[in-house]
């Protein structure tokens, strides 16, 4: 039995030439062994078979030896000679493939990074975040990423599938003090004892079970710890907290720096206990916390969301317009459509667009290879004919041309590796992320490079090798060779594909830029020139609370005393913040006598009486707040959007009307004293919301209008006054127009990435066209000669050649322009304020493609057309 299996194995791998006699030897030995020990004979046979597996004895890898090493060397030699002879062709292919591969792989790296967010947590696919939906007449109006403190606990009690929960809040601005220095920390979050059940960051020091036993415990990441304590032992140290609470924090743990690919980054974890003094702690009424829950494996999400719906009804009452829902952790970064996200979100659309561009680049490079090698078929036809005559079979020729394709692809890959390495620092800047430090020793990159080199060989090599290997020796050696009709059509089709891709990319780049320009340039409805903004620290002790008002008022007065400071206004929310940097209420409001109670979110901002002037808000009716009038405590100024929603079209008519807030009996009434023109407080992605402005004379944020001259001096003055009034905290300020500009940074980044890679794609396409035109014109050298003899002008000849390409460009335009229209129009729909689809730019893009294409083709034809016919027709 063993002998039979062993023999079969041996027969399988052994060189057939050697098999009979070696097997004979084995048989002979076996029968000898059989006499000595029956049982062991079979095993010995097997052992011998295994030991016979040696390079000298095994079957050659390929039957009929399509690839035998001598031929292989010949292929290599022929390939190298061909590549050397046609240097331009080689360069175009190699450079094209290199740019294509490098671009594709770098983008791929970025896309993978974007998709990797939060997937490293254990049970990431069972972790969800609780959100809050505010509905209006049954449709969802606002999706809030935050929930109330109690949501997690209640949901875990109510719904059996939910097995665990954790609650955390972002502490946007903490002021800490250690060893005499004050730090403003923006990366703090609160955490309860279950935090590490969800986010399993690596603990370096301390006991994770008891991290937050002390209500004043704090856990630092490695780099934070280093900036506070240097290399000293971290656990057991203390840090003074000034804001939000005035307490002494005790460091109980040290964790590794958290990776960049999480939607909830932080560098300081403060015990949940510190939040106890807040109103929203263990309270249902405030949605200020991020609540994460873990669900049982295999739970049905729709069933679960239905249970959440029931739980919401139970919790908030049957009449509620507010519902809890859950959203998968790993989808948050790219797919969340919730407001109040903790950090800058990624964009699924950008990822998709980039993936498409990267595929375009690579395909364009492959198309170059296909086009150039089939166009060059004539050059190789005689070689193929001769090889066939001396006995090559088709499979061998296919092998040869595939080998050549592999050779070029591999050269391209090597150059691509260099290119990618050189481009990496710029690429990292371009996408604003440190993705990889070196591609050399980054295994996923190298693996992808290898895979796509092989894939490229097959995709770009198969068709040319089939074409080239199918020539009939009789026809090609007789000299009657012509390219096949189908081949020409395919080539033209591929050229159309390249033109279309180039056209789409150019037009899309223009559109993205135009939209960003539009958003930056559009009148926001306020004047942000030379308006400086700053926020004074929160009062954290009872004494500070007592003096807060007087301090801020005298600070403002001091500032006003400087003639270079024109206005000092105060507000709760500075313009130019994120789209969720605003207050909102879902209470039902009505304008008495004009509208019924309306469901839906109303946005609120508290300003003092100078703010309107400081930022140049325009009053269209009525008056501003007046701090002298006692009745103004119940005054409000709505914007036009608010009035329109409540059915008031005449702004002046609204002044004097009252707004009732909430359905209950004791609901307060507010007097409309004025109306402001709609203005954009944030990026133009969002529409102007229905907003009401309410009076508050001492808000913490200030908008300070400066005189343009010597504004640097004025800032110095502000800084000196600041240190008089707020000595504990360093001054941080920004200009309002800068704040607005940062809102568009992501869009600009997207535009830049798009522009860079579009340029590369077009470069590769034009390179290919350059090569193709060169071959086609050389092939028609004699035709050009004859035409010239018969009296054609150079310009006429050029036009004849152009005709072919004009056709192709026309088809590309017919396919490309609708494609651009539908994709870019959809993209523009992301923006509440968008440009109309820029037809002029689409036409301009077409013009650019045509100009580049005809320029390239024209250059090649011109080169042929100027040759004297006496030279081109010498041999006829």
């Amino acid at each position, binding site marked *: 039995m063993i002998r039979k299996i062993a023999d079969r194995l041996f027969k399988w791998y052994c060189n057939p030439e*050697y098999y*009979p*006699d*070696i*097997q*004979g*030897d*084995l*048989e*002979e*030995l076996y*029968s000898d062994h059989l006499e000595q020990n029956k049982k062991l004979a079979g095993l010995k046979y097997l*052992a*011998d078979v*295994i*030991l*016979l*597996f*040696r*390079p*000298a*004895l095994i079957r050659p890898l390929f039957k009929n030896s399509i690839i035998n090493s001598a031929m292989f060397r010949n292929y290599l030699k022929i390939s190298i000679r061909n590549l050397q002879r046609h240097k331009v062709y080689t360069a175009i292919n190699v450079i094209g493939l290199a740019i294509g591969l490098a671009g594709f792989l770098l983008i791929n790296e970025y896309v993978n990074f974007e998709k990797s967010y939060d997937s490293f947590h254990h049970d990431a696919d069972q972790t969800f975040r609780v959100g809050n939906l505010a509905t209006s007449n049954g449709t969802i109006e606002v999706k809030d990423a935050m929930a109330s403190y109690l949501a997690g606990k209640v949901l875990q009690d109510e719904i059996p599938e939910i097995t665990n929960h954790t609650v955390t809040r972002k502490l946007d601005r903490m002021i800490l003090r250690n060893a005499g220095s004050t730090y403003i920390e923006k990366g703090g979050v609160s955490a309860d004892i279950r935090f590490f059940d969800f986010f399993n960051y690596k603990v370096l020091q301390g006991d994770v079970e008891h991290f937050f036993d002390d209500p004043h415990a704090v856990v630092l990441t490695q780099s934070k710890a280093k900036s506070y304590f240097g290399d000293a032992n971290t656990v057991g140290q203390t840090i003074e907290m000034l804001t939000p609470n005035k307490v002494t924090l005790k460091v109980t743990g040290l964790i590794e720096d958290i990776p960049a690919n999480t939607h909830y980054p932080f560098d300081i974890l403060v015990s949940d206990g510190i939040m106890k003094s807040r109103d929203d702690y263990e309270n249902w009424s405030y949605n200020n916390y991020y609540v994460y829950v873990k669900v049982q494996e295999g739970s049905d999400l729709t069933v679960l969301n239905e249970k959440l719906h029931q739980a919401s009804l139970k919790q908030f009452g049957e009449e509620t317009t507010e519902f809890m829902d859950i959203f998968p952790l790993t989808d948050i970064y790219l797919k969340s459509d919730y407001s109040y996200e903790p950090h800058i979100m990624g964009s699924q659309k950008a990822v998709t667009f980039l993936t498409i561009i990267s595929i375009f680049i690579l395909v364009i490079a492959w198309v170059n290879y296909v086009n150039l090698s089939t166009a060059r078929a004539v050059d190789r036809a005689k070689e193929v004919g001769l090889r066939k005559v001396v006995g090559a079979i088709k499979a061998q020729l296919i092998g040869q041309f595939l080998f050549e394709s592999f050779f070029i692809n591999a050269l391209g890959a090597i150059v691509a590796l260099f290119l990618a390495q050189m481009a990496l620092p710029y690429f990292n800047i371009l996408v604003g992320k440190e993705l990889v430090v070196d591609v050399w020793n980054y295994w996923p990159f190298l693996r992808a490079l290898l895979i796509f080199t092989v894939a490229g060989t097959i995709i770009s090599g198969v068709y040319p090798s089939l074409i080239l290997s199918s020539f009939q020796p009789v026809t090609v050696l007789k000299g009657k060779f012509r390219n096949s009709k189908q081949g020409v059509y395919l080539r033209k089709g591929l050229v159309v594909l390249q033109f279309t891709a180039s056209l789409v990319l150019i037009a899309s780049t223009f559109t993205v830029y135009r939209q960003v320009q539009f958003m930056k340039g559009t009148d926001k409805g306020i004047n942000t020139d030379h308006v400086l903004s700053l926020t004074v620290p929160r009062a954290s002790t009872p004494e500070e609370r007592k003096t807060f008002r007087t301090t801020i008022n005298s600070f403002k007065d001091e500032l006003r005393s400087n003639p270079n400071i024109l206005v000092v206004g105060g507000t709760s929310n500075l313009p130019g913040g994120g789209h969720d940097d605003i207050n909102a209420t879902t209470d039902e409001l009505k304008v008495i006598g004009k509208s019924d109670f309306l469901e839906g979110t109303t946005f609120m901002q508290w300003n003092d009486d100078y703010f309107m002037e400081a930022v140049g808000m325009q009053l269209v009716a009525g008056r501003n707040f007046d701090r002298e009038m006692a009745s103004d405590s119940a005054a409000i100024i709505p914007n036009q959007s608010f009035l329109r929603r409540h059915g008031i079209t005449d702004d002046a008519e609204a002044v004097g009307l009252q707004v009732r807030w909430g359905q209950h009996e004791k609901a307060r009434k507010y007097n409309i004293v004025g109306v402001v023109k709609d203005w954009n407080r944030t990026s133009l992605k969002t529409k102007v919301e229905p907003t009401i402005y309410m009076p508050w004379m001492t808000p913490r944020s200030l908008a300070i209008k400066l005189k343009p001259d010597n504004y640097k001096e004025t800032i110095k003055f502000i800084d000196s006054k600041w240190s008089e009034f707020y000595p504990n905290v360093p001054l941080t300020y920004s200009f309002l127009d800068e704040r607005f500009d940062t809102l568009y940074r992501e869009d600009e980044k997207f535009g830049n990435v798009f522009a860079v890679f579009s340029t590369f794609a077009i470069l590769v396409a034009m390179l290919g066209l350059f090569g193709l035109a060169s071959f086609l014109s050389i092939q028609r050298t004699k035709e050009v000669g004859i035409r010239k003899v018969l009296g054609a002008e150079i310009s006429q000849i050029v036009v004849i050649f152009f005709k072919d390409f004009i056709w192709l460009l026309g088809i590309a335009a017919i396919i490309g322009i609708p494609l651009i229209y539908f994709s870019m129009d959809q993209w523009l729909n992301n923006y509440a304020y968008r440009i109309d689809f820029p037809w002029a730019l689409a036409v301009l893009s077409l013009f650019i493609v045509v100009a580049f294409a005809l320029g390239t083709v024209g250059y090649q034809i011109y080169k042929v057309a100027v040759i004297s016919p006496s030279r081109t027709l010498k041999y006829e």
Partner: protein
Amino acid sequence: MKKYQLGEFEEIVLLTVGVLFDEAYGVAVKEEIEKRLNRKVSVGALQSALRRMEKKGYLSSRVGETNEKRGGKPKRFFNITALGKEALEYSKDIRTELWDSIPSVALDLKIV
């Protein structure tokens, strides 16, 4: 040394083929080596050495008779070629030369 590539084991096999003159087929060579050198030789090691040397031209082979004991498979007999002989002589010369070059003191050295 580049001229004749001959490994230690190859040399033994080549010599044994010579010893067995005209009767040198796989099993015979194996048994001869095992008997004379008192060491185990696997079929794999032997056969790969034989085929390698055949490729190098040190050995020639012919297919011989079949018999029942071999499951109807033929024997393959190996013979040393002229080149094989040269290689052996070269190898032997090298050794002799080396032996002769050893100063007599080196071999008479005793551990004190």
